[in-house]
C-alpha cells in the first residue's frame, strides 16, 4: 500500500524519498509497469510519475499510438542532453538504446550529431541520421568534423540518399561536393562490412561507398521515393 506525503512516499509503511523511488524505478517504464512493480492503482502510479517529474527524474517519450514511455533516472535531474535525444527529435522512428552519452553545459550541434551517428557504424543510426540533413546549416563545420573522423565520403553518400527520401533537404554547397568527391586512387569503403545496396547503386558508384540500405528500409520517411 502506498501513501503520499509532500516530500516522501510511503511504500509498505517505509518512507522513501523521490530519489530513492527514482533509483527503484530506474529504466524504461510505463504507467502499467509502475503499477505492477509497486502494486498500486493507476491513479497513484500517475501521481508518482508527476512527483518524480517535478524533481527532474523523468524524461517522457511517446510511442506511435501516443502511449507515454518514461525514462526514469536520478541522472535526468542533471539536465544533460545526448546525441540520441537530438536524433530522436528529428528521426521518424526514434532509436531505443541503452547507451549513455550525456553532454552537459552546451547543446551539441546538428552537424556534430550527424558525424556522431555515422561513426557508430550501425544501420539504425544511418537511417535515423538521414532526417538531420534537413537541419544542416553549417556545411563547412560538417566538412571539418567529418574530415577529422575520415568520413567525408560517407556523409556525402548519406546526404544523397536523404535527398531522395526526406522532403525539403537543402542543396549541398558545391564546395563540399567537390572536396568530398573520391579520387581515382580511392578504394571502395563499406558503411557496414559485407553489405551493399540494390536501390542506391548509382550513389555507391558516385562516392565509392557501399551502402547497407534499400528503399524498403526507409519506408518511414515520406519522401519522393518512399
Amino acid at each position, binding site marked *: 500500500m502506498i501513501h503520499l506525503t509532500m516530500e516522501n512516499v510511503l511504500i509498505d509503511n517505509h518512507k522513501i524519498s523521490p*530519489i530513492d523511488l*527514482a533509483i527503484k524505478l*530506474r529504466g524504461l517504464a510505463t504507467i502499467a509497469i509502475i503499477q505492477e512493480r509497486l502494486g498500486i492503482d493507476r491513479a497513484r502510479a500517475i501521481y508518482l510519475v508527476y512527483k518524480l517529474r517535478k524533481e527532474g527524474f523523468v524524461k517522457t517519450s511517446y510511442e506511435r499510438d501516443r502511449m507515454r514511455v518514461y525514462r526514469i*533516472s536520478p*541522472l535526468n535531474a542533471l539536465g544533460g542532453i545526448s546525441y540520441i535525444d537530438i536524433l530522436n527529435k528529428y528521426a521518424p522512428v526514434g532509436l531505443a538504446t541503452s547507451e*549513455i*552519452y550525456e553532454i*552537459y*553545459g*552546451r547543446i551539441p550541434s546538428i552537424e556534430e550529431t550527424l558525424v556522431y551517428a555515422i561513426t557508430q557504424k550501425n544501420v539504425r543510426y544511418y537511417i535515423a541520421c538521414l532526417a538531420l540533413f534537413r537541419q544542416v546549416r553549417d556545411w563547412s563545420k560538417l566538412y571539418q568534423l567529418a574530415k577529422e573522423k575520415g568520413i567525408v565520403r560517407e556523409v556525402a553518400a548519406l546526404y544523397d540518399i536523404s535527398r531522395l527520401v526526406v522532403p525539403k533537404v537543402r542543396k549541398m554547397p558545391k564546395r563540399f561536393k567537390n572536396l568530398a568527391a573520391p579520387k581515382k586512387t580511392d578504394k571502395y569503403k563499406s558503411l557496414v562490412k559485407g553489405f551493399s545496396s540494390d536501390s542506391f547503386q548509382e550513389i555507391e558508384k558516385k562516392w565509392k561507398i557501399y551502402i547497407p540500405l534499400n528503399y524498403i528500409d526507409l519506408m518511414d520517411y515520406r519522401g519522393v521515393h518512399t
Partner: protein
Amino acid sequence: MITIQEQQLLFVDIGNKLPKKMTAYAIGGTAMMFLGIKDTTLDIDLVFMNDKDRLVFNETAKSLGFREMDSRVVYKTKDNTPEMLKLGEVRFDLFLPKVITSSFSEKMQERAKQIHEFGNLIIKIADVHDLIIMKAVTGREKDDIDIERIIKDSKIDWEILIEESQNQINLGNERALMDIGYTFEKIEKRKEIEIPKNFSDKIWKLFNKQIRDKSKKLK
C-alpha cells in the same frame, strides 16, 4: 559530501576551463552516483590514463581555487596513491591507472560504456563489475556495504568478476584472488545478498592454483 548536482556543476566549470579535450574514468562513489546507485559521495575519484592529462586537470582545478592536499593524510604509506585536491568539503582523488593495489586494466576501460561530456572533460563511468573488483581488494567495511548495494541494484555477470580477478593478478596484484575471496566470504556471512556458490568456489580454486604454481616456481 557532494551531491550529483554539485558534482555536475563542478565538472562543467572545470571542463569549460580545460585547455584541451581529455578523458578520465570515474570510479568509486563518483561512478556509483552516475550509475544511480548512490546520491552523495565523500570524494570524487578519477583515473587518468597518463600523467600529462592529470597535470593539466590538476592545474585547471587549482586555477579555480582547489588546493593540493597530502595524500598520506588519507592513504598513509600505501603505494599508487592519488594526487589530492581540496576545496571546502569537495575533494578530488586523481589516480593514474594503478589505483592503490588494483590496476584500471584495458578490459576495464573497454567496459566503461557510459559517457558524460562536460566541455573538454569527458568522463567515462567504470562498469559495475570493475567497481566491485576495486572495492573488494581494499578491505574497508564501507566498501563491503557498497558492494552489497551494487549487487542488489545491478545485473551481475559473475564470470566477468572471475576473469577480471585473474587479470588483476597478471597485472601485478598478487593478492587479488585472496582479497576478493575473503571479501565475498564476509559479505556472504552477513546474508544481505546471495552470492552464487560456484563463484566463491571458483575464486578459491583459482587461489589454490595460484599458490601451487608459485610454490612450483620457488622449488
